């Protein structure tokens, strides 16, 4: 590991530093940057709270994204499981009666979601994975009606989403 060596004799912490109210009595994080070209060390400080808040915001944002991506994985897993069941029915491994009984476990009652929530999730998912979904895909993902999905899509400014709506509501 490299050891930090003093390469300049100039004052590292200046008196003006302490004269600044921002720095006194605060919890600070210091950053040391060595500049080989000018043979100097630059010491900068940041309020710890500022750094902590920034990291927390970063963490929160990514936690939400991870939650969103996990929800897509669960959605796809459920779809795969159902399609395997349906395939078994198509291959006559299951009678229609047995299939209906098993399919009952997958049956959902659609919810009525706030269009704003649909819009924000659709927009974020689109920016994260960039796969083009249809309204029925979103309806299956959100477990809500397609009308509910379209109410959410109408709130999105991007033309790609407007194109998924019936002609009368397109912003053409």
């Amino acid at each position, binding site marked *: 590991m490299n050891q930090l060596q003093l390469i300049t004799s100039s004052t590292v912490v200046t008196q003006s530093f302490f004269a600044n109210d921002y720095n006194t009595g605060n919890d600070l994080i210091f950053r040391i940057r060595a500049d080989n070209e000018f043979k100097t060390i630059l010491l900068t400080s940041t309020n710890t709270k500022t750094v902590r808040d920034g990291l927390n915001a970063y963490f929160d944002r990514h936690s939400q994204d991870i939650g969103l991506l996990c929800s897509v994985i669960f959605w796809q897993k459920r779809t795969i499981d159902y399609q395997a069941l349906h395939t078994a029915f198509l291959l006559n491994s299951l009678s*229609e009666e047995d299939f209906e009984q098993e*399919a009952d476990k997958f*049956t*959902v*009652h*659609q919810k009525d979601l706030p269009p704003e929530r649909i819009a924000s999730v659709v927009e974020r998912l689109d920016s994260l994975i960039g796969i083009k979904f*249809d309204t029925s895909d979103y309806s299956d993902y959100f477990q809500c009606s397609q009308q509910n999905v379209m109410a959410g899509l109408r709130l999105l400014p991007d033309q790609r989403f407007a194109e998924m709506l019936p002609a009368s509501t397109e912003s053409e």
Partner: protein
Amino acid sequence: MAKKSSICSSVEGEKLSFNTRQFYPRPPVFNEILKKRVYPFKLGINGYVEIETALENPKQTAIYSTSLTEQGDSVQGGSVDGWATRPIKTPTVKKATGTHSASFGSVSGHAYAHIESSHRDHMQSTDIQTRHPQVIEVINPVYSPDIKG
């Protein structure tokens, strides 16, 4: 016989026949209007759905007032979704055009199909535009000269 291909056009019937190049079954949903479970599906890479058997008394029984309900009415889109109250049986793969096969099947009970993306997708395909420069409204099964048996 009405034929539509604009987004949100729909058909409802007792038996709908379809052809498509991509068939997806979807997990069932409880339909609050019919008060019963329905089996959703999606047809991708163009889907064509035609009413083979109309609903009995469609003015009273169709869910959506905008749905086409007469025998022979049809819709086609780049992507079509729908549902049926009876479990969806195996589609059969047959030659559909000179170059492509397609899945042919039917859904029954009370069945519904709805266009979710129209020819806009279709028209954006330069390949299809080249082969069918005259494409207008419903083109399937009027891929006419290409249709085999």
